[in-house]
């Protein structure tokens, strides 16, 4: 006689058994407690990351008083949004858009050059034993950990010698040095590239460059997407370098421009004496300017979802 807990095709499942099947389909190998535990933890993190973003999105709609009196996550008025937009644009005749353009130029330049030199380096460190390899790995690590504050003066002096201070190149060139990219490439290739494949190709007479071009590079498409995005993000938010190298406000990128815009106004220090003629900047305007700076990164990220997140690091010869 079949026991109560076995389900055979001959007899329809009873209520208890149906519940068990439902449980299994819903919770899988997580278990019901596990399912809700996971959900709860993830939702908590969603609130932690999401609420400030939501607040930031709504901030341009609230003026000075509304931002204190209205509930934090409420929408103020459309009028304030429009006014914030106009204030931000009015700052030095819409200089924010010049900064925006500069940011894009600097970022694209350092991204392409940086990746072109970093990926081959990371690859060769991962697959080839050549004299000086360990030294190069250590040196890369050391330079990655060097405090930017220590490098500021020497870098400035270097750029000065090359007569590049206060030009776009003073921002672009140092940013092409991308040790993080080299390391990530190194970690990726050393943990996922099948060396026997490379050896086989070498035995067949493949040159090192062809190996890289036809085997390693195609396998690294997800890595490329992730690296491009990280480079974009880091360079978009690059503050210290341009802050030191650039004097001419027309060459500023967004972070430096934003800093000067906010620091010289009363957005954060209500009693701060703004110079006559300078616009009175409010929190809403600061938030609006912040949003303008964040938005491109978000858009680029959403557009490149497939490369950055979807299936990152898969695609190598596994299983």
């Amino acid at each position: 006689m079949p026991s109560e807990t076995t389900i055979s095709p001959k007899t329809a499942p009873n209520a208890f058994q149906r519940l068990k099947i439902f449980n299994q389909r819903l919770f899988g190998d997580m278990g019901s407690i596990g399912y809700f535990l996971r959900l709860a933890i993830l939702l908590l993190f969603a609130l932690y990351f999401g609420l400030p973003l939501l607040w930031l999105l709504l901030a341009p709609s609230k003026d000075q008083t509304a931002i204190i009196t209205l509930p934090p996550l409420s929408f103020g008025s459309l009028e304030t949004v429009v006014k914030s937009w106009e204030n931000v644009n009015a700052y030095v005749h819409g200089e924010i858009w010049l900064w925006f353009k500069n940011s894009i130029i600097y970022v694209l330049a350092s991204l392409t050059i940086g990746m072109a030199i970093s990926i081959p380096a990371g690859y060769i460190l991962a697959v080839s034993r050549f004299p000086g390899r360990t030294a190069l790995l250590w040196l890369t690590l050391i330079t990655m950990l060097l405090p930017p504050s220590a490098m500021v003066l020497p870098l400035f002096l270097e750029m000065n010698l090359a007569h590049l201070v206060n030009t776009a190149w003073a921002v672009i060139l140092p940013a092409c040095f991308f040790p993080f990219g080299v390391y990530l490439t190194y970690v990726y290739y050393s943990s996922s590239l099948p060396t026997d494949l490379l050896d086989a190709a070498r035995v067949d007479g493949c040159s090192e460059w062809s190996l890289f071009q036809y085997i390693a590079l195609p396998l690294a498409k997800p890595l490329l997407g992730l690296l491009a995005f990280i480079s974009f993000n880091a360079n978009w938010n690059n503050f210290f370098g341009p802050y030191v190298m650039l004097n001419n406000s027309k060459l500023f990128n967004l972070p430096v421009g934003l800093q000067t815009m906010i620091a010289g106004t009363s957005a954060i220090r209500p009693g701060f004496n703004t110079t006559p003629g300078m616009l009175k900047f409010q929190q809403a305007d600061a938030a609006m300017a912040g949003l303008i700076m964040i938005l491109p990164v978000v858009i680029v990220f959403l557009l490149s979802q497939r490369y950055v997140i979807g299936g990152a690091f898969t695609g190598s010869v596994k299983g």
Partner: protein
Amino acid sequence: MSNQIANAAPRLNRQRRRTLSSYLFALPYLLFMLAFGIGPGLYAFLISFADFKKGVPQYFAAGFKNYVVAFKDFRFAFTMENIAEFLVISVPLGIALVVLVSLLLHMRPGRFSSALRTLFFIPGAVTGPALVLLAIFMFSPVMSPFGFIQRALGFESFDMLIAPSRLPVIFTIIGFFSGAGMWIVIQYGALEGVSTEVLEAAKIDGCNAWQQALYIKFPLIRPYVIYQFILIFAGNVQLFVEPQLMGTTWINANVPQQWAPNQLAYSFAFDLGNFGSAAALSLLMLVIGLGAAYFVIRWTGFFDIKA
């Protein structure tokens, strides 16, 4: 005899060619590293021994004096304690939470997981001044969406909340908000690279999702976790923007003028004109970060080639 030589020669050539092409792969990067990494680094090292009393650096004139001045400064011990406290809280917590979230997300890949990853990543676009701006509002119990929590804990105002003793936790909260997303994406990507065969075999053996995460996935993403540790540790040693902007530059919070060592270095350089001591302090921070990295690398064999 001539046969042996004939057999030896081609092998040598191939090996040498391989080494040469390896160097060529790394050459552009090497040049940039010399110009923008090692060069400035060495110069900074040089400066730490220079005397700046006359405005222009007199190299080697100061000997170790700059170091002594820096270490004997009354704020030195204070900043070191602060950064130590900050590291003890932020590094283990940062890594543990990132790995936890990545594992949780990876248990059930799908739209929900994907959407959450996007959400977690977006704050990474908020850095530097924009981040501090947001933080100031988030920590104001009057205006913040988290106000009800802060008021329930007894903090009625921003000044009550930002007390010096709470700063390590506060900077951790701010830093995690901005920095965790990228690492979650990287660790999730690493998890995607775990062989599905291994996971299936485990499932057949009766492993549930939690055991898979703990005993299989987590050990297999070890290299990435190590990489994360090294960078987060060294990066957090150099904490600067948040305490600097919350100190005196933007707002009068209860943040001491020089809270972190990097701020002390900045103060030496730009308040006192003592670039030598500033460089000395910066190099100390490098040594600390490097020390931790060295220890971890040796201990885990991070640099070994897996072939």
